């Protein structure tokens, strides 16, 4: 999935702003952003649900919208909350969708329902489904086309913890089969657990993208210290060349070091504190999370 200079406006509001995006094949790709950032609009543009104002895009190598039919033949998508004909059963809804796809799709209806764990309720009317079951049915609707690319917009919405776990495992299994999954979400924790790479979108613009490990490597290093005299720590470290920022709190001292700081600096800090007469009970490097990184990036942008 690839876009160049993609822009979509609604009047004066720029929902998608000059987006450059590359999603490689065979990975789980997180598309992250706060509510209203333009995540769903980008997906709708990609799927031909609405038209782009400018820019180019392609899905599975097919330029869209020129070869939209060929591209979407191997794409499955959930956009927004999955809704279906409530008077039909889950199976009938899928059969309706399968009839619009290639003939083989009809044969995948049962398998898709089985895969999302809805076989036992497949013949119930959708009106009786819970939100979580509708999400599963939405994923099943994606699978009937045997997609190479799945675009899932907030698929965890409405799921209980067990359902989220199931969904996570399903996404990982789809990726393990060689499919590409684009996961649009504002749940950073879920994306971090599921995806290999992410793009961060804010106010319609992609502000960062790449593999998660690569992106997190550029974040500050935080060291949590539990010691006998926390109040003396800032004084002991203020003349060091490490660029450390010290925050003393009720649960200890947090020392923030610039991105790229080596682990030997942590050892040096430990030595300085001990030599300064502070007894160390615990000193721990805190792994930077996607959430902390996201907050750093977005707060920096807001400050700018």
């Amino acid at each position, binding site marked *: 999935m690839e876009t160049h200079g993609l822009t979509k406006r609604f009047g004066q509001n720029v929902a998608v702003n000059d987006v450059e995006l590359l999603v490689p094949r065979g990975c789980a790709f997180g598309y992250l952003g706060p509510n209203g950032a333009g995540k769903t609009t980008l997906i709708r543009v990609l799927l031909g649900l609405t038209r782009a104002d400018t820019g180019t895009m*392609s899905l599975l190598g097919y330029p869209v919208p020129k070869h939209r*039919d060929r591209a979407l033949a191997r794409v499955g998508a959930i956009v927004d909350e999955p*809704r279906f004909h409530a008077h039909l059963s889950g199976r009938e809804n899928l059969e309706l969708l399968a009839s619009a*796809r290639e003939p083989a799709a009809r044969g995948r209806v049962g398998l898709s329902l089985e895969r999302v764990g809805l076989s036992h309720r497949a013949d119930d009317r959708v009106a009786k489904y819970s939100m979580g079951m509708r999400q599963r049915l939405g994923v099943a609707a994606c699978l009937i086309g045997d997609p190479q690319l799945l675009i899932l917009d907030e698929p965890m919405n409405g799921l209980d913890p067990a359902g989220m776990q199931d969904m996570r495992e399903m996404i990982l299994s789809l990726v393990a089969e060689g499919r590409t999954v684009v996961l649009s979400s504002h749940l950073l924790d879920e994306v971090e657990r599921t995806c290999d790479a992410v793009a961060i979108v804010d106010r319609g613009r992609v502000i960062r993208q790449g593999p998660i490990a*690569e992106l997190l490597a550029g974040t500050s290093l935080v060291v949590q210290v539990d010691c006998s005299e926390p109040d003396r720590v800032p004084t002991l470290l203020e003349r060091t060349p490490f660029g450390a920022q010290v925050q003393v709190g009720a649960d200890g001292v947090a020392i923030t070091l610039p991105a790229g700081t080596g682990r030997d600096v942590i050892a040096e800090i430990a030595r300085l504190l001990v030599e300064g007469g502070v007894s160390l009970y615990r000193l721990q490097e805190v792994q930077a999370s996607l959430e902390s990184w996201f907050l750093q990036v977005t707060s920096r942008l807001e400050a700018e």
Partner: protein
Amino acid sequence: MTTVPSATALATAAVTVPPADPADHRGSPVPTLGMIASRFKELRKRRGLMITLILVTIGIPTVFLVIRLLLHALASKTYGPAGGYDTYTALVSGVLYVFGFIVAATLGATAGSVDLAEGMFRHLVVTGRSRLALYLARIPAGLAIIVPLVAVGFTVVCAVCVFAAPTRLEFNGVNVPVNLSRAGLETWAADHADEVICNFGFRVGPSSPDGSAISAVVNTVPCGNGPGGTSVHKLGPGAAPGSPTQPHASAAQIRAVAAEIARMNYSDYSAQFLYPSTSLMIRSGLWLELEAVIGFVVGLGLGSLIGQRTVAVVVMIVLEVVLTPIFSRARIPHLANLQRALVGLATAHLAPGGIPVFGSGGGGPAGGSGNPGLLPESTTVAVCVIVAWLVIWTGLGAWRMMTRDA
């Protein structure tokens, strides 16, 4: 975890178009049988809608006819037979024609708008199937529902009107055998001269050579008793009450005059039927189906255009029940051609002879227009108007579906 290229690789990414599956025709605007069957099933499973359609197209005429059958069975002297020609024309023009259009439009508006309203439209668009094919699949699917329903309702009406028709024809208050030829009617009239002379209307011109002779004979025939037991005579044209009458007319004269009066009434008599003819029923059925097809296609287009069922249905009802009757009968200067563009007027002009529409007050003779009060329109223009409505509304609905944000 997979290896993911960094963002800097974006600019160098090359686009290569993979070969398409030659067996996959999802870009074609022609819907597949599977799509039509699925859409048919989706519409058929709308329980509330289907019950409404059945009640209106089959239920209303059935209930009406059952009540008439019961009343006739319980009190045959007070209530006439349930069926018959007049009942047929009343039900075809007053019920099936109007309600058939409305239910067809309701089904069309539903088919045109529910995917959008119920969130299925985007699922369907994401399949990559041509939006035009998605739209066109609804037409045969919907017609496969409404056409049989109208046919069933119409069959019920035909069956009752034929099998529960009156056994004798009442013409000018006299029970007359049906399907007589002109000579047959004259012979029958001669045999029932008194009834014919007293009840059948006739008109003779003042200069007619036989006029005075007919009036003279008519005036001799007693037609019941007046006050005090005096006999009442029917007065022929030109005869004033109290004018001298011929005291006696021979039986042969009376028979001849009765036959002559029957000959004068033959054209009116021949337009009277006990029950609808097979030809009329076939033409009426096709006409009702045409009306239903128009209602469905226009409703589908309107529903798709505005994306809402309720508004579309209300607009269609107003068109059929309010606007069309008014503009079909009113003659508005300078707007006559615009009035002729109304599809309801066009279909009314295609009505089989004998079927009155828009309350025109009774059918004319079979084979001719039964709606003389309508704004004049040639059959060619009527057909063109109908075709234009079908094409334009299909075009509008399909265009909106193809351009709409999903």
